[in-house]
Each structure stands twice: as C-alpha cells, then as structure tokens.
C-alpha cells in the first residue's frame, strides 16, 4: 500500500499550477511538501482529494486510481484531507463534525443503519478514539463557531481521523496557530502516525515543524518538484536556497 503520483499536471489557463509532479509515500511515513507561496502545493492536495480536476498524470493509492473520482469516493478509499482554512458549519457541534467525518469515511452501509445506528455507542467510540487523544473530549458538545481558530483546526484533524485515514493529507496544519499550539499539533501528528500507521503528506511553511515532524521532504517551486530528500540536505541545496532566498 503506497501512494504514487506520476507526472501530475494541472493548468489554469496558461499557468502550470502543478507541473509533472511525481512523488510517493508509504504507510508510516510523513512526507513534507514545502515551497514558496503559489508553488502548487495546495492545488496538488486538492486534486488528490478530488476537489480539483487533473489535466494529465495519475495518482494511485494501493494501486487504485484516484484521479477522476469524486471527493466522497476518494475519502471512502481511506484518502482523507484537512483544510488550510477551516470553514465554520455554524450550529454543528464538535461531535457532529466528527460524526460526519466518520460517516463519510465508511464505505457502504445499509439504509437501515443510516437511520438507526446505535448513536450512544458511536459517540462513545468516537470520543475515545478521536476526541480524547486530541484533547477535544471536554468540548465535544460545543458548537464549532464558539471555538478558537486553533481548536477548529484540531476539530478538522479529528474529523479526518474519524474517517479512518490510510493516507492523510494535511494542508498547513499549523498555519495561524500559536507556537505552543503548533508544537502540540506537531506532536499529535507524529503520534497519529505512530498509532494508526498511516501515510501522511503534510503541506507546511513553518520549517521548525517540518524539521521535527517530516521523515522526508519534497520542495516545489512554480508547480514542479525541485528537490527531494531530508530537510537538512534541503537547506544546503543551492536550487532550494535560490527559490527561497533569491539569487546570491
């Protein structure tokens, strides 16, 4: 079971948002996807999760093609994403959101179960497996809109975890968080990987989080991959330095 993207290209008019990008991730591995603004990182995540079309190339999980599938089909195959900007679903509570994530991740269920699954058991199960590890159990019944931005990000991650991910796509999980929250989030991401052994692709700008979390990184610029390797090597790479810092 690996995720393999081969020559993925996405164009918006004349702009190559993603330009023949190839990468792979295995279970238990956290791949950092970094690059300057506009490099195409989020666009890449969008196209794997089905939110955006792909012009050419393929992306497979466990040998199964993801390109061309709708978001709800992709999530049922265990490929689950989080969002950079968490939108508010105003009156839904934390537990509601997590339940939605779980429901979206389940492959197929009978009509009867859709109406009458044992709610109490489900709620308790989700609280133990998802909310407690993320320290959200105490606020399970609060509406999302009353929570801080940092907590909303945590809820978004909880929703993704409830869908039982095999490949977790994290789009800037610590953007907009305080440094304390960032450190906690990084720790949570590592422990999630250790606990459920999923593959993770993480788009992130904060390098100290990337360094402490990712096993391997891919650097993108103008839609193309310009570097792949460890983060220590990346910092020495002349092309990466040029892209980030300009010509010396």
């Amino acid at each position, binding site marked *: 079971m690996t995720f393999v993207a081969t020559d993925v290209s996405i164009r918006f008019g004349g702009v190559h948002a993603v330009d023949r990008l190839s990468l792979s991730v295995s279970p238990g591995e956290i791949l950092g996807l970094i690059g300057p603004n506009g490099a195409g990182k989020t666009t890449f995540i969008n196209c794997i*999760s089905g*939110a955006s079309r792909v012009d050419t190339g393929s992306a497979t999980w466990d040998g199964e093609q993801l390109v061309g599938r*709708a*978001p*709800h089909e*992709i*999530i*049922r195959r265990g490929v*689950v994403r989080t*969002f950079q900007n968490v*939108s*508010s*679903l*105003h*009156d*839904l509570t934390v537990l*509601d959101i997590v*339940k*939605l*994530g779980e*429901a*979206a*991740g389940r492959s197929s269920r009978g009509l009867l179960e*859709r*109406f*009458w*699954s044992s*709610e109490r058991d489900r709620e308790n199960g989700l609280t133990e497996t998802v909310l407690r590890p993320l320290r959200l159990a105490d606020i399970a019944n609060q509406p999302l809109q009353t929570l801080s931005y940092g907590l909303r990000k945590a809820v978004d991650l909880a*929703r993704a975890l409830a*869908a039982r991910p095999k490949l977790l796509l994290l789009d800037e999980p610590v953007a907009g968080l305080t440094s304390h929250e960032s450190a906690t989030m990084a720790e949570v991401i590592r422990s999630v990987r250790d606990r459920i052994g999923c593959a993770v692709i993480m788009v992130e700008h904060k390098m100290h989080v990337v360094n402490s979390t990712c096993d391997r990184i891919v650097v993108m610029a103008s839609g193309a991959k310009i570097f792949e390797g460890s983060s220590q090597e990346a910092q020495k790479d002349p092309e990466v330095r040029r892209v980030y810092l300009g010509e010396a």
Partner: protein
Amino acid sequence: MNFALQLITAGLAVGSVYSLIALGIVLIYKCTGVVNFGQGGFLVLGAYLTYALRAAEIPTPLAVVGSAAGMAIVGMAAERLMLRPMARAPLVAIMMATLGMMILINAVCLMIWGSDQRAYPALFPDGALDMFGIFITYNYIAAGILSIGLSLGFLAFYRFTNLGLMQRCTANNTKAALAIGIHTGNQNCFAWSMSAALAGLGGTLLATLNGLSLGLGSIGLAAFSVVVLGGLDSLAGAVVAGLLLGVLQTLTAGMLTPILENFLRAYTSVYSVGALQQVVPYCLLVVILLVRPQGIFGRKGTERL
C-alpha cells in the same frame, strides 16, 4: 368564548397541515438554496394519488402511505431529471423551472382526473368529538394529530439521526460538505423526495378537510406565507408559523368576516366581503416582509465580503 375555541382548534388542525407543507419548502431551500414553487403541484398530485389508490379499493392506511411513497419517487425524479441537469444554471432559472414543474403536474392531473371538484373518499370515520362543548370532527383531529406527529418526527429525524446530520451539514455549507466527503447530490435528492412526500401527505390531509380539486394547489400557496413568516431557513419556524396562520384564517372566517359583513350591511349596500381568510395570509406576508424580512425565526442573512 366556546365559539372562539372551536375556531382555534379547527385552525390548529388546518395550520398543522400548512406546517407539514411548509417544512418541505424549508427543507429544499436549506439544502439547495432553491425556493420550490412547485410544492403546490406535489400537494395536488399527492392528494390525487391517495384518491386513486382509494378508488382502487386499497385500505386507507396503505393508500396514504402508498401515495407518500409515490410522491417521494416523484420528488426524487424531479431532482434527478430537472434540478441536477440545471445544477450550474442561475438560481432564478431553477426556480422558474420549479414553477414550470407545478404547471406540468397540474396539467397531468387535469388530463387524468378532470377539473371537477371530487368528493374525497372518507379516510377517517365520520362524526365529531365533543370536548367540553367544543365539537371537532374526526377529520380535523386526524389531520391535526397526523401532521403534528409527522412534523415532530421529521424534526427529530433531522436532529438526531446520521442522515439528518448529513442533511444539516449540507444545508449549512454545501461546499464544505462536499469537501469533507459528503455526497451532496444524494443529499439534495433525499431532501427533494422527503419534501415531496411531506407535501403529498399534506395534500391528502387538506383534501379530507376541503374536498379535492385542482384548486388545492392554490392552498399550497399559503404555505409560502408560512415559510416567509417562520423564516425560510427555520424548520421549527415553519411549524409554528403554520399553526399561527391556520388559526388566523379560521378566526378571520368565523369572526372577522361576520362582524365586517354585519357592519357593511347596516350602513352600505355591500352584502358580502367574500373569502377574507384567503386574503389574510398575504396581508400578513406583506407586513412581515416590511418589519422582519428574515421571518420570525429566520437568521439574518450575512455575507462575507
């Protein structure tokens, strides 16, 4: 006093049926942003379906359930055949299409059953219940209990079940629902079929109270004032406003009209003021739109710039 109570109970029964129909409109609006002007069509078709099933000597409970199930299929078909292909069309175009759907349904009913007023088969036993001097026919009792029960059941379904949660999420923010992996197309389809089934049941119940003709659809229009009164996006609002409108209508017919007519007969040559109760909902509609455009329970629309 007894007379007023008599009117109020009758009004509550009729009003609860309005609630049922209005719930369907709110449901579709919340899920898809479309105001379904075709709800009146669903109403008429549901009533005729029950009529046809009863005419085929199918027992009453089965006929009512069968017509609701039939309407659920009609609603599903409407979503698949009309709404889904129009997904990218402007909202106004979609609403016009729903109006067209109502005209189509009316024409089909006219073709099959003709334009005559028909005696509706008695779904509930004749007679009336005497409650402390207030007489209510079993028709009204059954209509009231059934529609209030159905409304509450539906609200509970929306609140407590998994599918209800997905419905709420889709209604809340369709794009977000899509993004987190909910098949919003199926959710919309479900909303349409539920809505059509609710309207069909409402139509059946209204026909037991008022008799059956194509004009029933215009009673469905009253549901729009209910929806505006309660707030387009509030399910609970639809229920409360429906009851309110029902009571207002019977009070108008039973008390305001006679008073006004007596006054006019005494001082002018005007003999009758006609069906004033048909005017009341729309007067109310205008007033509400002026004072509280989002409705009693509605959320004020906010748009992020």
